[in-house]
């Protein structure tokens, strides 16, 4: 079936994503930032659904929102943020950083202007129905080695995080 | 299950010490523990404290001489000791006489006694001997009593309460603060001059915002 009112959904979700992203970097209080991040991530999950990538959307929700952001919130609660809220929020090189980001934006625009022809102007549809199965097959057949490496990475991360956060080992 | 054990005896059978003897089992109607006097209605004169004689007391007398005055009253033994030696006496009671359990630390206020306004009373019990003894000392108002927290951990709160109620300072107490009354309270309610309806109205006004706590 066709998604209903695609452009409206797209613009709505994109606006939420971008505005919340601005919220993430502008808020004084890290908890507010984390909540803004949740909104960004959820609207991105919506965008993935619109792009017929339901599995990625599901992983986004369960892993990013349900896992990583909870981790962020957990750490924020462990840390006394009251003092940090009263301090300066931006570092001394903020102007340079802003300029660099602007330059990056300019680069994007330049790339688009120069190579307009290679950008696709149409959308091709992949079947939604078997998306999960196909992703699974690809993960476990074509990309088995990267998958294993990723699991190794996670193991290292677990050990690293435990070593870092534990007081006495 | 603990209760299955057939052993019904207490941890230590009461030895026939000079202390309070349990009344003979044959006479249940007799209330426990006063062999000193026949059970007649109280006469105006009443029983008087008798000197207490036992091996333990002799040991104490040898060590402290005239500083102590061992007595027995209604089958209960107590030693009145001089404030200067009471700590050594208590220490000796615990270390060499097995009085391992400090039941209570308390005080009595006698405002009419000149320079000896307070009785400080330590009630001790010995698990191995199944025997109680009270140690008493007379203090002048304002003089400190020795703290026995180092000897018995129990004394910590008991001495705090004593300080709270009577204002007796216990020297050597790790944390001598009020315990039942609030920290800023003025006065020590169990002193005789403290009226029964008296209160620190200043504190009440300041902290509770009311005119009177009554």
């Amino acid at each position, binding site marked *: 079936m066709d998604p209903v009112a695609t452009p409206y959904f797209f613009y709505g979700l994109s606006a939420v994503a971008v505005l919340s992203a601005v919220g993430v970097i502008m808020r004084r209080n890290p908890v507010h930032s984390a909540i803004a991040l949740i909104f960004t991530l959820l609207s991105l999950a919506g965008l993935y659904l619109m792009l017929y990538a339901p599995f990625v959307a599901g992983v986004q929700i369960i892993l990013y929102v349900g896992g990583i952001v909870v981790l962020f919130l957990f750490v924020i609660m*462990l840390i*006394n943020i009251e003092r940090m809220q*009263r*301090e300066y929020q931006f570092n001394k090189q903020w102007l340079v950083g802003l300029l660099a980001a602007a330059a990056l934006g300019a680069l994007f625009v330049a790339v688009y202007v120069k190579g307009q022809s290679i950008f696709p102007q149409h959308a091709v549809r992949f079947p939604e129905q078997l998306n999960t199965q196909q992703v699974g097959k690809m993960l476990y057949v074509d990309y088995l080695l990267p998958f294993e490496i990723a699991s190794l990475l996670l193991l290292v991360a677990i050990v690293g995080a435990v070593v870092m956060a534990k007081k006495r080992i | *299950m*603990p*209760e*299955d*054990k*057939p*052993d*019904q*005896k*207490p*941890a*230590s059978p*009461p030895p026939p010490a000079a202390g*309070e003897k*349990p009344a003979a*089992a044959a006479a*249940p*109607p*007799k*209330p*426990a*523990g*006063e062999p000193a006097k026949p*059970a007649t*209605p*109280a*006469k*105006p*004169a*009443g*029983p008087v404290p008798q000197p207490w004689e036992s091996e333990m007391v002799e040991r104490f007398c040898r060590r402290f001489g005239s500083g102590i005055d061992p007595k027995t*009253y*209604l089958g*209960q033994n107590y030693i009145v000791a001089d404030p200067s030696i009471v700590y050594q006496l208590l220490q000796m009671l615990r270390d060499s006489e097995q009085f*391992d*359990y400090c*039941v*209570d630390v*308390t005080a*009595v206020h006698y405002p009419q006694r000149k320079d000896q306004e307070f009785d400080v*009373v330590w*009630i001790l019990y010995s*698990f191995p001997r*199944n025997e109680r003894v009270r140690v008493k000392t007379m203090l002048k108002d304002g003089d400190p009593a020795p703290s026995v927290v180092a000897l018995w*951990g*129990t004394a910590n*709160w008991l001495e705090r*309460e004593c300080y709270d109620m009577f204002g007796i300072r216990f020297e050597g107490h790790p944390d001598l603060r009020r*315990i*039942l*009354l609030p920290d800023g309270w003025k006065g020590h*309610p*169990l002193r*005789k001059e*403290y009226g*029964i309806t008296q209160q620190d109205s200043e504190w009440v006004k300041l902290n509770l915002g009311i005119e009177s706590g009554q």
Partner: protein
Amino acid sequence: MADILKSEQSPSSVEHIEAEKGVDQPFLDATELILNMGPQHPSTHGVLRVILKLDGEKVLNTECVIGYLHRGVEKIAEHRTYAMFNPYVDRMDYVAAVSNGLGYCEAVEKLLNVEAPPRAQWVRTILTELNRIASHQLWLGTHALDIGAITPLFYTFRDREEILKIFEKYCGARLTTHAFRIGGCLYETYDGFEQDVKKFCDFVTPKVDEYETLLTTNRIWLERTKGVGVLKAEDCIDLGVTGPVLRASGVKWDLRKAQPYAAYKNFEFDIPTGQNGDTYDRYLVRVAEMRQALRIIRQAVDSIPEGPIMGKVPKVMKPPVGEIYHSIEAPKGELGYFIVSDGSTQPYRVRVRPPSFVNLQALSKMVEGALVADVVAVIGTLDIVLGEVDR
């Protein structure tokens, strides 16, 4: 504590913080937290306030703040006659009012050098043991509730009700009974007292098994209570802890055996003890004590002697000058009365040695390094009544 809590509110400018860096030391480690448990808290059994210093969930330090229920019972005693003070003692440990009354009456009788007649002694023993069961039942229900099992509370209260009914029939009051008078008991037992008590014994014996079915082998109960709040025998003696807590640590000491009072020397019973001194052992000891209490009651009911129930005491009680210490085994531990008489109708000084107050002192030792949930369990297992702690 007050200045600690104040230091959280510091001025809000960065410069200020920089300037005050020496003064504005963080009072806590990065992960530490002060938790103020009580005085209004569901499981501090009244108005106990415990200030916990936590590292995450781990308890680093505790401080008890008591006195919220301080009514000055000892001061009141100095302004009442001996008989008038008797009802006041019921208000200290209000779940075991009968025991309190027994201790006071016996202490004054000793001071007066009179004795209660045997019939009174027997009735006193029966009522005191019934009250011990009631107290332990209330403890069991609330303790299980603290640990999260809500059902035992209702079972124990259902059965405790039967005891209170007997009290009500005997003396007209359920909780603060004022059942005994100096020199004996005021009331003769009502018709059918023996039958009621026997019926109660038969009724409650399977109920005690029922509590055990719910808890004793429950895995979660075992995990929550075994090895929690361990108190070794030496520590118990050093801290003056008495009652079931002491017996659970393996010290076989019970005043009913060691220095018998009332009619206890006529009855056979065991002193249940534990080995590990943890919360589970204390639970077992108290449940076993309920059974022993039933045993005593059964023996006592069968052998109540005939005779008067009130001894001969003077109308105006004027004990001779002197002082007396008398203690009994209350459900919570050694309850002692130190009474000083100056020969008048009013006691010169009454000192109550409250078991709860002394036992509560062991709290900070028992919860060192435990978790928040254990603090609740340990407060429950100490079986304190704040009315008695604060008096």
